[in-house]
């Protein structure tokens, strides 16, 4: 909200108008020069209200000064509009009604005075409602902002948890495979090796044949165990770069050339999750907003970074702000220490760069 729409400006503007009217009334009337002191007092009290937050009871000073000038000139009756406004704009409009008594003691026809008082009361009440509404909107905006910050923090926490879980899963899998190899394959291979060493010293053919049979049986069992371990460790669904290839391959709207380079085995599982989401988002954007016929997808692992680039040959129809999907991906990339940038200058271009974890 722009500052000139602040309720305080509206209130000060009305105060100024009031004083302007009273001054005009004083100039146009036949009043003595010393009666101008009343206006000076009212101006002083109004300027104090503009500068400081005076309490509501301070309107008694305005009323008292006006009351002192009641016998001398009519400006003092109109001056009561100031305390009426001040009380109404503080929500104490019932007290403001008390000043309407001035209508009954005025020694002149009070129809205009009544209108002036009602106007002051109405404007004061309007300012009060305006301030209340603005306060309420500010509080709501603050709450929403707070909720958004909390949500963003939760998102960052979840992303960090995902990273940690992926790391833990990898370690658990390594441990399971090591245990499997040690418990089954290791024992059998050690037994077979011992049997072969014993075979060198055995002189009887029957005994030597038995030992060879034992070695054969153990090696056969080891081969079986090894096959089972490898089979269990191999995933059925495509993962990592294969999954990205799979997504690009089955995208029907435009023809896609997919290229990969570098040591992609160094890329962690949670990186692949983000890169897959980026690729899908980019391809969806190409399908929805671009008139491209070809697109290029590059996945490169170089040095300590992994980089995904998606570029098409079309023209982007809408050059608007990034949508919630891209915003969310940008935040996820940032939380992993990387970055995601999008450009529509020369076809749609998306580049996601993520830092690779150092080998542990």
């Amino acid at each position: 909200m722009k500052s000139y729409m602040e309720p305080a400006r509206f209130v000060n503007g009305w105060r100024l108008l009031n004083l302007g009217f009273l001054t005009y009334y004083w100039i146009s009337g036949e009043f003595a020069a010393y009666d101008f002191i009343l206006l000076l007092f009212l101006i002083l009290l109004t300027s104090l209200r503009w500068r400081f937050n005076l309490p509501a009871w301070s309107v008694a000073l305005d009323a008292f000064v006006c009351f002192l000038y009641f016998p001398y000139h009519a400006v003092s009756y109109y001056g009561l509009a100031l305390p009426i406004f001040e009380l109404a704009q503080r929500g104490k409009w019932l007290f403001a009604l008390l000043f309407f008594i001035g209508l009954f003691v005025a020694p002149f026809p009070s129809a205009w005075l009544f209108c002036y008082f009602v106007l002051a009361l109405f404007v004061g009440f309007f300012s009060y409602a305006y301030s209340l509404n603005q306060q309420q909107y500010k509080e709501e905006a603050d709450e929403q902002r707070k909720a958004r910050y909390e949500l963003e923090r939760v998102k960052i926490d979840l992303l960090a948890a995902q990273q940690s879980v992926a790391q833990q899963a990898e370690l658990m899998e390594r441990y399971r495979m090591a245990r499997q190899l040690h418990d089954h394959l290791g024992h059998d291979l050690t037994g077979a090796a011992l049997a072969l060493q014993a075979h060198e010293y055995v002189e009887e053919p029957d005994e030597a044949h038995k030992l060879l049979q034992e070695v054969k049986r153990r090696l056969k069992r080891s081969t079986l165990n090894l096959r089972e371990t490898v089979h269990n460790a191999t995933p059925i669904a495509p993962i990592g770069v294969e999954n990205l290839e799979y997504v690009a391959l089955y995208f029907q709207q435009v023809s896609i050339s997919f290229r990969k380079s570098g040591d992609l085995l160094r890329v962690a599982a949670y990186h692949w999750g983000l890169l897959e989401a980026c690729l899908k988002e980019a391809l969806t954007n190409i399908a929805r907003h671009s008139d491209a016929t070809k697109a290029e997808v590059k996945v490169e692992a170089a040095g300590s970074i992994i980089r995904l680039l998606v570029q098409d040959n079309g023209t982007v129809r809408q050059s608007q702000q990034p949508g919630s999907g891209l915003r969310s991906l940008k935040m996820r990339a940032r939380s992993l220490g990387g970055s995601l940038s999008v450009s529509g200058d020369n076809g749609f271009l998306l580049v996601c760069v993520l830092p690779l974890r150092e080998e542990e």
Partner: protein
Amino acid sequence: MTIFYFTLKRSFGSLTNLIFLTLAPIACIFFPAGEAWPALPYGYQYFGIIILFVAIRLTQIIIEDRARGVIKRLSVAPIRYFHYLSQNLFAYFVILILQCAIVIVGGLLRGQELYQPFALFTLYLSFSFTALAIALAWISIFRNKDIAFLVYMSLIFLMVLMGGIMMPLEMFPDLMKRIAVILPTFWFAEGLNWVVYGRQTSNFMLINGVLWLYTLVFLVLGSTRKMQ
């Protein structure tokens, strides 16, 4: 009181200021008396104009401070803006009091007809405070001191012309006479008239009271802290 002493030094720092603050009041002493109007010698009638100019000249230090970022630096220093402002104003008051004293004492020594010198001194003092407050409120609107000074010169001219210091108010139409009452210069001119013709002390006190009310209003308006 460091700011007070420093402001005094700064006020007399430049040669222009030194000449303006010392020679202008001395020159007033040597102006001749008018024939029919004004009743006081010209120098004493127009001393109000000099007070207005001196006030804006002095308060330019505050606008300079604002432009150079001193106010911004003060906001992080262990000093309140109130202290800064009050000590500055106090220094200006002291200078103006000295000027008023020079004019009155000089006039008495030269044998000028001042009617009621003490009342005249009191009036000059009250008007000095008002002029300072007006200048303070005026510079709070502007960022550039030269623009503030130039526009204020036109304003001073209007105020003294319409207020009855330069010309008798009787020459103006009725509406102008009523508008003149709004201006502080009118009350100063009224005060000068009282010094010459006045009998009731209450009237003189009322005139001074009005000038003090103006001072309060403009002090309240001009005391807002503006960083730039």
